[in-house]
């Protein structure tokens, strides 16, 4: 069973502000997810290699050239900034992340 502090910690890492009621609500929910994963601990995985790659590829690199990787990545600044909620000419604005000294 996860503790309330674990949920608070994960919320902090995700920069989520949770009310006490929400923490109460999410603690058992998140806990049950973990319990499901814990079932895997019962399996003997000593001889099973971890899977972090599924393509079987190796040494995929590109030459050092200034050009779009492909047509889809060739975009104008306007297109790229289209969905930015707050901007000032080409600057992206976000709620201030540090306090003024």
């Amino acid at each position, binding site marked *: 069973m996860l503790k309330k502090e674990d949920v608070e910690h994960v919320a902090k890492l995700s920069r989520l502000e949770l009310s006490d009621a929400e923490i109460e609500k999410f603690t058992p929910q998140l806990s049950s997810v973990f319990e499901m994963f814990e079932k895997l601990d019962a399996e003997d995985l000593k001889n099973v290699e971890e899977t972090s790659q599924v393509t079987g590829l190796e040494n995929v690199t590109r030459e050092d050239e200034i050009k779009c990787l492909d047509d889809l990545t060739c975009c104008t600044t306007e297109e790229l900034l289209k969905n930015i909620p707050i901007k000032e000419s080409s600057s992206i604005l976000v*709620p*201030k992340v540090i306090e003024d000294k």
Partner: protein
Amino acid sequence: MTEEFRTVIGLEIHVQLNTRAKMFCGCDNNAEGKEPNTVVCPVCMGMPGTLPVASREAIEKTIKLGLALGCEIPKISKFDRKHYFYPDLPKGYQISQYDQPFCKGGQIELESGTVKLNRVHLEEDAGKLVHPKGSKYSIVDLNRAGTPLLEIVSEPDITSPAMAKDYMKELHLILRNLRISDADMEKGQMRCDANISVQLKGERRKGKVASSPIVEIKNLNSFRFVEKALAHEEKKLQEEFEKWPEKKTKLTHGFDSNRGTTYPMREKEEAKDYRYFPEPDVPPFDLTRFPIEKWKKELPKLPSHHRARLSELGLTKEEANIIAKDDTIKDVIENVAEKNKAIIGKLLINNVEARKLSIEALNQIADTIRDGSPSNWVRDMIRRSVKSGKLPLEIVKETKGLAPSSEEISEKTKEFTKFLISENPDVVQKHKAGKAGALEFLIGQGMKMTKGTVNPKELREELVKQLEEEKR
């Protein structure tokens, strides 16, 4: 008090590689002078569904540094995702390296000792944040996001703030030597985080060395600041040593360069909070298929090599250090004739114009310099050669301007000294009366009259000799 303590310092240094394009996309890696967010693409902006492709050049540069620093280059290497939430990191994770970096171990030799390295790994730089005072917004510029970034992690082998500065300077030289980064600290191309703790010498508590907490000082962007911030923190840790709890803790500080002091910062997340896992979008690397032996052979000579060679050739340590820092001079020194290296080394240090000459021209000048050649003859020859583009030997032929031999010079000086004495009877009189400074005045006059073509040391000796003879 300082004798009781031992200082333990480790440095993490970030270096932007000077590739043409970014680490995982084809955006220009040089955004100098560009408007915010104009040197970006969906990949470095972290748009969903994009696929990063690693730069071969960045990997080559990383491994070359590893080879220069004596690192082990493992057979297998891979990238990992390092997660943290901050507006400078659009994907919510940084592509970095966790347990299988490109380079492991290694060391940097300093006069003050050897600093072992933990690793050198490759990652992508984050964007830049500006926090305008009074505004309720922070400004995000992602032009820097995706720049290939090295992280060079030392072991805690550094024992003083001065040694930390030396370490950084040496690394800076090596990076410049390898031409893998401009490492301009003012532009943030080389940045340093320093970890420092102090330990009580000898004393152990519960079987452990009694130690202060480790303080990490972030974003030190000059050699001077590294030393200053560490010296400040070292003193503070020693003074407040008894106050620290026994449990070893870690603190994060920033450095206020205006005040020369450090201040506490937002606590950093711990390694496990970064939730590292292998980057599924970038397949792993089998480094045995990279031409590592060839790269090893291509490595340029390192500053330590130049220093050692130059001091063998009779240059002072300071002179050798100047040369080791200068790319142009270094190239020349490696290529001039063996017997001329010391002469040319000194020439290049003292005469900026000489740096414009070809290696052939420099060798010819060195060959024609004889014992005691007046420096202005050399200066004149360099100037003529630079101006006309002719080789010194051609100029000598045309003007019959061979450097005078030492015998010729002595004969000239003798004659000139006689003349100088006869022209200044009153000063000579004063000198004979024991007036201090009269001799210096004569030498000064002589240098002026000859426009520096006599050797002042010889002139003095000759003056003293002739004046003595006159007395008799």
